[in-house]
């Protein structure tokens, strides 16, 4: 793939199970200063949900919150859906361009939580908070665009977990979502807690998931408790534990409360 719509791709930046991300030359019609933008091309085709997706991204982009990635354009070329956003060259919390200190990692998660809070206050749910979606920039970090696959292919909660280590992605999905409960503040807070745990320890909250096939992984996940790693500080552990309470009512009430708690931990000496 060398282009989509009027975006000419310079190189591929990354590839996920449902999308690929490309560095592209900025079309003049966008009227923005940067020469290049990052373009995500969804491999899920389905044009029926395009308007809903464009509505959702419009609301997200209109927030213009400093903790959210600026988005420029969403479009459809044939049946392929794509969107353009600011290119963040420093990588994500999953693959940072340089080593980050413990404090930097904490503050990046706190920024992501502030971004999520701004979305929640505007009635939006992110649904896709994970280290790959916490993008690093000069000011610390921004939260990437929300996960909107459910608008294009309806009916599923989680998709494409795959096998082996990828089954670990399951833990970003709050267990109540699998009972058909709506995604909301509490499920995003859960995902923030799992993200915090993963970037501080390097491993998941459900170690048994790693080696399991999808069937076993789902059964294990629905029947076990999250186990925060021993390599967390006391403060970090307290934040993770509150964020991943199985009962949504016992978690942080808002993502901003989680951000406050993480920033407080980051401010402690040591």
């Amino acid at each position, binding site marked *: 793939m060398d282009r989509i719509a009027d975006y000419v791709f310079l190189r591929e930046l990354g590839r996920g199970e449902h999308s690929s991300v490309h560095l592209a030359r900025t079309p003049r019609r966008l009227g923005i200063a940067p020469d290049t933008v990052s373009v995500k091309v969804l491999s899920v085709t389905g044009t029926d949900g395009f308007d809903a997706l464009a509505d959702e991204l419009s609301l997200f982009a209109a927030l213009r919150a400093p903790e959210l990635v600026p988005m420029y354009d969403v479009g459809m070329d044939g049946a392929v859906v794509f969107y353009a956003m600011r290119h963040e060259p420093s990588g994500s919390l999953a693959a940072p361009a340089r080593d980050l200190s413990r404090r930097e990692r904490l503050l990046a998660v706190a920024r992501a939580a502030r971004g999520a809070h701004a979305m929640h206050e505007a009635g939006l749910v992110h649904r896709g908070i994970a280290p790959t979606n916490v993008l690093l920039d000069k000011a610390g970090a921004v939260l990437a665009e929300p996960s909107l696959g459910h608008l294009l292919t*309806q009916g599923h909660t989680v998709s494409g977990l795959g096998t082996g280590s*990828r089954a670990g992605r399951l833990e970003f999905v709050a267990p109540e979502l699998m009972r058909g409960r709506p995604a909301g503040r509490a499920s995003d807070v859960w995902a923030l807690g799992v993200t915090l745990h993963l970037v501080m320890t390097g491993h998941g909250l459900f170690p048994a998931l790693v080696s399991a096939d999808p069937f076993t992984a789902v059964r294990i996940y629905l029947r076990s408790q999250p186990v925060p790693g021993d390599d967390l500080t006391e403060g970090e552990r307290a934040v993770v534990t509150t964020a991943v309470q199985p009962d949504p009512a016992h978690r942080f009430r808002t993502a901003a409360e989680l951000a406050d708690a993480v920033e407080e931990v980051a401010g402690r000496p040591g």
Partner: protein
Amino acid sequence: MSVPLAERPSPALRDWPRVQVHPGTGVVDRRGDVLLVVPVLPPSSAERVRELVRLCHRPDPTGSARVDALRALLDLRAADVPGFALLVRSGTSLRALVHRPVRLLVDGRAPDRPAGDGARLGEHVLPDGDWHELTVAAEGDAELPAVSDVLRLDLESGTVPGAGVTLLPTSPGPVPQLPGGSAAAGPGIPSSATALRPAVQFRTVLLGECATAAGQPARAARRPPLPIAGARGEGGVDTATTGPEVLVEGVHCPQGHFTDPELPACPTCGTPLPPAGRRVRLPRPPLGILVTDGGTIYPVTGDLLIGREAAQAPDVLAGRARALPLRDAARSTSRVHARLTVDGWTVLLSDNGSANGTFLSRSGAAGPWLPVTAQIPVRLVHGDRVRLGKRQLLFDTWRETAVSRGPR
């Protein structure tokens, strides 16, 4: 996303006259042995013209399928199809199929009355050597554009704008050059290997600062903040992933979970249900989840059609069921392979006349596999595995789930 490269000319192409395109705003399309000329494009006919071009691009070794398809198209929508001429090479003659209004001139004169169905699609057969110049143009053009000799071009392949064509037989002589033409030997005609790339067609919506700068009005109304997490007793169900609500009769367990009155204990928390609980009609909660071997999770809230092309099934399109697409490279699953029906608190599975059959394993492991028929639906219970072709599903009802304890 790029246009397929121009087809290599077959030897037969040398027998083609030179195709000189008249400047204009219609469409001239040439591919292989077929040349389509639509001199005038009425704005409303864009879709019909695309259909015509697609039809002409279809391979047609017998030479009759294309004409039959054209006749069928004209039978359906003669009024919507603009005038066109389709020239097809056939042996040592050229067949010209003409749909009016369009003008065909052989050596400057209109040919005799066409054979066949003159009203819709007239057909002329023009044997080689019987003519020296053939022109297709819009009817009513007072004067035909003179064929320029300054830049002699030959449309070899591709789609270009044009108001018509003039065909001039090439004089027998050395082999004409091939496209890419390093072998430009002899008095060959410079051929246009230019295939115009179709304009990029896309649709975009500007966002954020770009939308503001362009003065684009807000697309969607601002929404109220999300409810604060953990408001007790919030019993919502996510209609984005579950479909419309269905009311069922059930009881509340002592913990407040709405459940099947026939069960001895609440499936959510395990609390025994009082034998004579008060029955109420409420929206049915999800009855479990289906997990695919690819790791996709579907809440079971209503009827589901499972299969390779389940999303296209009439029941799904009509909104009576949701689709659970299940495919594999070997196409071992049928279009609609199996059907999951939710009746009250019961989840029933039946085969849908699939080629490879639907099988159920009750043990929670992979086998032994019992066949599921179309006639007798099987009630799914917690832990059932279903095999459809080479794919598998797991049904899970969250029983035995501990929910009350926090992380340690």
